[in-house]
């Protein structure tokens, strides 16, 4: 069993819309290396209140002190994906990863899949959902390809990399 918790509806619709608007206004850069992934990326935009809320949630869940060491906002549209190889290049751990979905709509596509030697977990693409993943043991993740079934939507997510620290 991997250390994984999923909390649905943790961020309300109004907050998601406001956050999404600010993130999009901050701008995304296109990332595309075919054997890693294709998506839009923003590492610079900060959402202090949301970040603090997510860290506090993860601390309560895991019973340890946590501090952010990296973050990335991603926006995925039809044709986009992120493979294990991309995670290998980007993950700064070991530590804890927290992902929040601030998209406008839900879908049955674009799930985040975590895989470890002793199990796995899948994060549904649901706006407002928060996944807390204990990545202190070896683990990798990918984001499923968004194909013809996804149509014209977009997925906006924040992934926080956290390290364990003294409270």
């Amino acid at each position, binding site marked *: 069993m991997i250390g994984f918790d999923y909390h649905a509806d943790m961020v309300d619709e109004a907050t998601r819309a406001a956050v999404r608007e600010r993130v999009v206004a901050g701008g995304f850069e296109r990332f595309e290396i*075919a*054997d*890693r992934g294709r998506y839009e990326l923003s590492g610079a935009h900060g959402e202090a209140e949301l970040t603090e809320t997510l860290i506090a949630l993860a601390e309560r869940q895991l019973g340890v002190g946590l501090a952010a060491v990296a973050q990335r906002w991603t926006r995925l549209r039809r044709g986009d994906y992120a493979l294990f190889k991309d995670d290998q290049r980007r993950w700064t751990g070991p530590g804890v990863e927290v992902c929040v979905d601030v998209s406008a709509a839900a879908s049955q596509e674009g799930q985040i*899949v975590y895989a470890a030697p002793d199990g796995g977990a899948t994060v549904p693409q649901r706006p407002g959902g928060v996944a807390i993943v204990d990545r202190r043991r070896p683990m990798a993740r*990918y984001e499923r*390809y968004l*194909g*013809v079934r996804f149509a014209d939507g977009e997925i906006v997510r924040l992934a926080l990399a956290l390290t364990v620290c003294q409270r």
Partner: protein
Amino acid sequence: MLLDFARWDAAALAEAWRVARPFPHVVLDDVLPVDELVRLCEAVARTPHFPNTAEFYEMMASPERPAGLAAFHAALDGPGRDFVARVTGKTPGRASLRSYVYLAGSYLLPHNDLGSGEAGRVAAWAYYLLPRERSTGGELELFDCTLCAGEIVATAPAARIAPIANRLVFFDVSPRSLHQVREVTEGARVSLSGWYYA
């Protein structure tokens, strides 16, 4: 013989293989007599296919070497080895074969077929069974790669091979052999494919 490799000029194909971009490959058309193609399609239709989904692919696949395709496999694994050796300059051993059905929404994202490196694949092949008008998408796309210290740092689509019925494609397996099957957006794409192993 189901697949008569003597029909082709292996020396000319070896040159085509060598100069092909973005990485070595050759395309052979009208590979089988029409009645053989029809029989092969019927054999694939009788073969069970199962959902096959992972990090970078989603399609339906048969088990390895299904019984109904034994003659085609025997041709690739027998005279095909010598033919592939002459074209590629490599020393291929056994050939694998599975059949694949790509329905709308199926895809195979970019990868180089090396796998874990322990797979020992030296060349790949694919053979297409259905007329082009039976599907939209599903092309085999080859990428040009820029490597820096062994790491791919940039990629660009460089060639696109349509899945035309009775077309057989051989392509190299190397760190540079990045390729994908573009998502099928309509209809169905049916193919046989596999690898030659060292």
